């Protein structure tokens, strides 16, 4: 079981090294094209070879992304990318583990897992392509669709408030929270790179338009007009309260950049594990003697 985990000597990567030759089957103009580009750029900057990267997703248009990269990919089942990714990271902490999801995959069916990977602070980079719609299944209501929105499953308008991904993850205690859009490719690649470099769980919400079922004001062009860079606003990413106040504007404002970066992030689960493994190693009896545990004891 030979594994090569150190960066290859002198290896310098181009974004193209991370793009596979599988042709995307997204609709022409889909925002996800930009997201895969931004991810491959970020990976090139990071410099880890593709085989040391595990790229996990659920099911959805967005979840096709791993197949378009050269990393080890796992296109799992709908809503369960995080539990699986967490198993991978804990089983082999040396890997760089990326997770891709959609608004439905991540915050509807998969919503129950988010809080828990975050409070464990598993060192994953979690990229959600938020297009406010179910793309793959052809246009149903998504948890980030606005109240009142009409879709094929809300013919008379949605009766519920949308999920607020940014506010949720902040409340779960995420230490790195950012937002980007393929309308600003450089900025998107940069927050993804920062997220990967962040030692602990990193969340990146990407406003990735669905050109087929999305609404006009969610398309790249409209986004370009709306986007506000947090940096340019003088936002202090170390300030949780102000991050939370801005997060509450999700749906009305479109901030890009790093919303929150915890200056004192809690220990990751992985750190705890390896410390414990070290501390207890000496106590191990050989595996084949484990049954001695059951010798009755006077």
């Amino acid at each position, binding site marked *: *079981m*030979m*594994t*090569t*985990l150190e960066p290859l000597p002198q290896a310098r990567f181009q974004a193209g090294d991370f793009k596979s030759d599988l042709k995307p089957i997204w609709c022409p103009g889909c925002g996800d094209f930009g997201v895969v580009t931004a991810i491959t750029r970020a990976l090139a900057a990071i410099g880890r*070879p*593709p*085989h*040391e990267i*595990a790229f*996990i997703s659920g*099911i959805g248009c967005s979840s096709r992304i*791993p*197949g378009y990269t*050269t*990393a*080890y*990919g*796992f*296109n*799992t*089942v709908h809503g*369960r990318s*995080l*539990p*699986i*990714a*967490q*198993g*991978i*990271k*804990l*089983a*082999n902490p*040396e*890997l760089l583990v990326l997770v891709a999801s959609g608004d439905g995959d991540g915050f509807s069916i998969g919503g*129950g*897992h988010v*809080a*828990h990977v975050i409070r*464990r602070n598993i060192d994953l980079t979690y990229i959600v392509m938020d297009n406010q719609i179910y793309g793959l299944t052809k246009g149903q209501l998504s948890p980030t669709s606005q109240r009142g929105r009409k879709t094929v499953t809300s013919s008379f308008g949605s009766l519920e408030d949308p999920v607020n991904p940014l506010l949720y993850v902040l409340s779960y205690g995420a230490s790195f929270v950012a937002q980007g859009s393929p309308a600003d490719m450089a900025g998107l690649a940069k927050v993804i790179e920062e997220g990967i470099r962040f030692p602990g769980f990193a969340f990146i919400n990407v406003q990735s338009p669905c050109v087929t079922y999305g609404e006009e004001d969610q398309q790249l062009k409209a986004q370009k007009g709306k986007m506000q860079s947090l940096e340019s606003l003088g936002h202090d990413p170390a300030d949780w309260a102000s991050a939370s106040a801005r997060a509450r504007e999700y749906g009305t404002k479109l901030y890009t950049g790093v919303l929150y970066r915890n200056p004192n992030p809690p220990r990751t*689960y992985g750190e705890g*594990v390896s410390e*414990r*493994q070290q501390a*207890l*190693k000496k*106590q*191990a009896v050989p*595996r*084949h*003697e*484990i*049954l001695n*545990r*059951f*010798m*009755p*004891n*006077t």
Partner: protein
Amino acid sequence: MSQELIIGIAGAGGDGVISAGESLITAAALEGYHGIMTKSFGSQIRGGEASCRLRLATQPVLNPNGPLDVAVVLNWEDFRRFGGELPVEPATIVIYESNTGVSPDNLPLEGVTPAEVFSVPITEMAQTHAGTDKAKNIVIIGLLAGWFGIGRASMLAGIRKKFAKKGASVVEGNVRAFQAGLEFAEAHPLEADRKLAAPQADRGAKLLTDGNDMCAAAAIFAGCTFFSGYPITPSTEIMQFLDREIWKYGGTLLQAEDEIAGIGAVVGASFAGKKAMTATSGPGMSLKTEMLGLASIAELPLVCVNVQRGGPSTGMPTKAEQSDLFQAAFSAHGDCLRPILAPTSVGDVFGITVEAFNLAEYYQTPVIVLSDQEIGQRKETVDPIDTSAFQLVERRRPTETELAKYTRFKLTESGISPISHPGMRGGNYLAAGIEHNEVGRPTASGEMHARMNDKRFRKFDPLKNRRDLFVVEGDPDAPIGLVSWGSVAGVAREALRLAQAEGLHVKLLVPKLLYPVVEPVYQDFFASVKRGLFVEQSYQAQLYRLVRMFVDLPPLVKPLAKSGSNPIQPAEVLERLREMVVALQGNRNHHQTEQAAG
């Protein structure tokens, strides 16, 4: 002298009933006796009634049940709550707490007059000698040591060790309480000698544990380094044991937020190249369904243990049942096959769990281990296991040459393809729940789907040769055959012994590999069989039905199946065997008559 002793003890939660039982079975194991101890509680978490039953013997104990030789009653109300679980018969010796105020010739036992009755001031003796009520269990073990000759020396040593931390005076108090029990017994000898005969000379001390701990230990032995699960009765002890141990072996444990995440993390760890396991019970299994299907199509090894309890739904969490077999075989949608193994005793759990890891890794598949509440939680003596006799299997990793042009789902002759994992250069591929081609890319081709389905089934063909996963006992040519599995197999084996002792011509098949159904084994077994019984603890007779799907059974092979928490007794099976013998003879006579007339 007896070859066997069945003891039942019941009282209130704080009475030390369980701890008395544990002292007894520990002493017995140390001395080389065989034994099984089961516990039972009321529905309260604390303060309800508690009981234990021990069956100790010079020969292997196959099944914890049977009428009591000794009943120890600390409190009649609690004792009676256990009803049929602690059956008093005319041969039973009853020992009860005097302060219950009941007179020995007017015990609250409907219609039974026990062989001998002793009213013992247990609490009073505990207080007098140890200065505390808490020593009641010590008095009890003293009494039992005295009357039945189990483990006097080792029990004394146990007491000294147990209380050492509490100081000399506590130790001495407890030792006195034990002595008091002993002396009471000696002062009131039994009418008949019921002392346990000496254990078989050639056998030394035995291991003592329960199925859940054994399963966890076997996982460690098999090289499991990742466990994730979610607590659920009666399987949680597997996770609890591993939480104490796995880190020492460089492993990781994660208590997940639910069963889906638990098996999800295991799927992930397996994808990452590690041997990984999860454990749960019925409701948890129902939640793991989708992930099992994913692991099947992505061909990822994992072991999933189901310690069965009474169902459906929340059902009866603390009672054993064998009603999750259909689910184990068929819960996931689509066509897929995952092997199912079932241990028949605590000792058996070791080999079965190791085998589960081996099959999982070899066939790149989830494997289900169907244990049950009884095996999982009963304490049992186990003959020392020679671990060097077990081989460990690793998944088929790609060679350097294969990595040069890596084909994850290669359609090989065996159906088994080389499997890489992240970190392995050149092994990069896309795993998916979507149907895929040989390199792992999504496909909508019906032809590829058919070939992949075929591969995923065909790869299990060698399992049809695993006769070692079946136990056949009794006369190979017998016209009467029993089939039984899991914890109930012990009942069937006991029935077989009884039948053989009566000279009945019978045999028994115990499959430990339940699925895929290995047709040739059943065909061979049933070749001589005219009548037979599947003995199982489920309403639907799930193994019987499962086997029928693939094997043409002789028409007079029928199920003897009962819902969980209604123990099947060896005597009952024996009775059915006798009936079958009579029916067969009747038939034969009938035939002979006909022929004579013809």
